[in-house]
């Protein structure tokens, strides 16, 4: 849909209600000059923060499709919305039913694509006035790379082989390459979108500021999968390693009935539920991960995986590679859709932009470096894994890395070490993922996209307790009752679509607001975003089971119905106007 549809049949109110005539005229002037002549780019670094933000809002307002900030409450008010001031009534619209309908559609569309101004974003975080907001640019290349590695490793690699290898055979190594390259391309696009918004947030807030409310809601639908379902997936993996550890150390395991989802032959995956409960308690108490804690976790994770590689390589049998790609390229893509799960978290690098020294250089380097490290480790783990045992043995293997080492060495202690490392690192990943989920819903609650209870902060603990409990209950249910492969695939599809939207967003923003100051620009535009889009589409269409895509589509429709029945009326952007 073009700007014409959005603008509606009437002149557009782009200035706030109290704006002077001169101001409106000036804004109008911008409209009539889509080439942007008259307000050239300013060197971003030289500007003060306040001027920067103002310039940003003005720039976007001038460039992007106009917005309407009135809530959709009744048709009466609707009719008046797009008029520049209430003095001009909508006589024509009210008397002519077709005109009114056209009007309604135009207005709803305008509201759906309204954007949150950066000034509003800063006032919400309180840094506009308090002065605490502007963060010192203190993160260098090494730390940023570690953030990327720390956020990525641990989500999937400990458990993904047993679901991915049966799909692709030893060629799963290529699936890691494919998924990794797509993840890297999307992370670069993500970094540009993040850098185009001078306030730091999640991809939901970036989409809200640049692409409009309904897109933000769609991104949020994906994020609920990327975070909520991912946390369920990691906690199921955690339960496998807990069981492996119990078996190795005490010779007792939690019975199948209490350690498997119903589809896997149990009733409930109790350890996974307990892990989510533990994370819930910690988050309510205000736990958080410091940069130092992240560094420690990165070291533990890498040590565990390097230990696996070092010990596992002694069981290397080249003839396990004899049947390299039993399922052909289709199998490789299917596995790529599955292992994409293990690359989520790489986008965390992009959201740190505001604190990064020299982001133009550091950002792409850190993304690429983190990706290279992560991919190298993953490929080594996968190669050692498939070399150690025939690929047919992976199916249904629980706590895979532990089991492989036990087989290679013929005793249980290496598996025990791996299990301990996995339990620690998966725990930290689950905690931080649930944390992210609560904070995204918190932001949505403040914007009026979900009920305000999500934005309620307990005065004593200073954490959003209700929000945390709701999130944890839902995640615990998913973890307790849904099999792990499905959780992986749902996370993958959510993440892929979110990245797809981000990549499309980069292209749209380059066209609609070419002069907008950006902290970081994608190298090789437009090739990188286009490749990123194609890569995402390819993995989604070819690499995921139809059932996953159908469930995802239903989920997005549900979220959009929610948006058009609740969000659009309760949006803070609407009620403020």
């Amino acid at each position, binding site marked *: 849909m073009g700007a014409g549809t959005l603008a509606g049949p009437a002149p557009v109110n782009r200035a706030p209600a109290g704006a002077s005539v001169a101001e409106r005229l000036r804004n109008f002037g911008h409209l009539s000059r889509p080439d942007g002549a008259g307000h050239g780019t300013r060197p971003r670094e030289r500007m003060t923060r306040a001027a920067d933000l103002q310039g940003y809002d003005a720039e976007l307002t001038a460039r992007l499709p106009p917005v309407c900030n009135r809530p959709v409450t009744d048709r009466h008010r609707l009719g008046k919305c797009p008029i520049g001031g209430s003095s001009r009534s909508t006589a024509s619209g009210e008397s002519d039913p077709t005109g009114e309908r056209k009007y309604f559609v135009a207005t709803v569309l305008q509201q759906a694509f309204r954007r949150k101004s950066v000034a509003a974003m800063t006032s919400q975080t309180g840094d506009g006035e308090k002065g605490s907001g502007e963060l010192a640019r203190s993160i260098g290349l090494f730390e940023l790379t570690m*953030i990327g590695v*720390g956020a990525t490793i641990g989500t999937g690699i400990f458990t993904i082989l047993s679901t991915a290898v049966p799909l692709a055979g030893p060629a799963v190594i290529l699936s890691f390459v494919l998924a990794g390259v797509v993840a890297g391309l999307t992370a670069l696009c993500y970094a540009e979108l993040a850098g185009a918004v001078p306030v*730091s947030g999640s991809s939901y807030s970036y989409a809200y500021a640049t692409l409009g409310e309904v897109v933000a809601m769609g991104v949020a639908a994906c994020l609920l999968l990327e975070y909520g379902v991912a946390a369920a997936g990691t906690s199921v993996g955690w339960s496998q390693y807990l069981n492996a550890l119990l078996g190795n150390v005490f010779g007792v395991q939690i019975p199948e009935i209490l350690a498997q989802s119903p589809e896997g032959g149990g009733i409930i995956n109790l350890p996974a539920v307990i892990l989510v409960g533990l994370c819930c308690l910690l988050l309510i108490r205000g736990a*958080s991960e410091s940069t130092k804690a992240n560094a420690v976790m990165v070291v533990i994770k890498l040590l565990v995986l390097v230990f696996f590689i070092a010990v596992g390589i002694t069981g290397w049998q080249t003839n396990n590679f004899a049947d390299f790609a039993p399922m052909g390229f289709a199998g490789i893509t299917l596995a790529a859709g599955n292992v994409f799960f293990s690359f989520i978290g790489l986008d965390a690098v992009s959201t740190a932009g505001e*604190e990064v020294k020299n982001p133009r250089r550091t950002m792409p380097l850190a993304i690429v470096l983190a990706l290279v490290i992560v991919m190298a480790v993953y490929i080594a783990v996968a190669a050692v894994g498939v070399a150690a045992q025939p690929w047919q043995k992976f199916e249904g293997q629980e706590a895979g890395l532990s089991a492989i080492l036990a087989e290679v060495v013929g005793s249980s202690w290496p598996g025990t070490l791996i299990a301990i490392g996995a339990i620690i690192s998966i725990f930290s990943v689950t905690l931080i993922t649930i944390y992210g989920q609560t904070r995204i819903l*918190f932001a949505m609650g403040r914007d009026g996209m979900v009920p305000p209870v999500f934005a309620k*902060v307990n*005065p004593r603990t200073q954490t959003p307790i209700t929000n945390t409990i709701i999130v944890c209950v839902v995640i615990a249910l998913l973890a307790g009752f849904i099999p792990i492969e499905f959780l992986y695939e749902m996370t993958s599809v959510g993440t892929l679509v979110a990245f797809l939207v981000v990549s499309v967003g980069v292209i749209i923003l380059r066209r609609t607001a070419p002069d907008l100051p950006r902290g970081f620009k994608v190298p090789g535009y437009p090739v990188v975003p286009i490749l990123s889009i194609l890569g995402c589409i390819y993995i989604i269409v070819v690499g995921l089971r139809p059932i996953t895509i159908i469930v995802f589509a239903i989920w997005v429709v549900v979220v959009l119905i929610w948006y058009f029945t609740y969000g659009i009326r309760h949006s803070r952007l609407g009620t403020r106007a």
Partner: protein
Amino acid sequence: MTLVVGLPRDERATAALHLGGLLARALDEDLVVVTVVPPAWPPGVGRIDAEYQEYLDQEAAEALDAAREALHGGVAADYVVSRARSAAAGLVEIAQERAAAMIVLGSSTAGVLGRVAFGSVAERLLHTAPVPVAMAPRGFRAAADTVVEQVTVAFGGAAHDTELAVAVAGVAARAGAALRIASFGVRPRTPLTAGVGSHAEDGIVEEWAHDVERAQQAALAAVAELPAPPAPVSATIGRGRDWASALESIGWGDTGVLAVGSSSEGPLERVFVGSRSSRIVRHSPVPVIVVPRGSAAALAAQAAEDR
């Protein structure tokens, strides 16, 4: 009414005495300076205990003599040696005997200069004292003519916090000091690995501040309704990544004291410092008074009657 000063036997004594003197002048009370010695054992064969006891008594007397010299500012004071099994028990006993309004203590020498640090006696009293406990920061000094200019009350926003604010307002009015209602929003940095940007926790603090501001307004209104409110009255919110920076962020003069309530989980009649209060106390650059909820209720009632 009177204030009980628990007299340590070393260089910490001066801090406790100066705080006791400052508060006594402000509230127009007198002081009881107490030093505690262990009680005598049942007479034994060797009579060696009596000798030891004599030595302890002499030590105590010397400490009290030194205290007489250290206390300045024309405050009336009584000097007492208490025999009790523990210093905390001895202080509480004297406080109850004299119907004292407060127990005043110094900081442990293990703490940082200029900050409050709990010693063993303070740890115990902060969980059991029936009356408010005042703690001087380590190395605290107050000149003979210093007055308390501002009383800050740490305000959490719960129902009993308003009562505390009213109670402290009454005391501040009696001391002729200004009242400041302060709340502290403390959240660590947003972990960057979560991928939600660097401001997620700032948003939490802002939403919290929004709610607590309303509670502060209610408390301010309750204070304004007092027959003799302190003046001026203000409210502020401190923010920080940790308690130290949150407390620092609201600024402190040299002549203020901080009042905190005891935890809502502890017994009603006694001081019980919760994890939150204890963090506030430990990072306070000014003397702290911990008020048990029972005392707060009584003081609030008294404030409502004061003319």
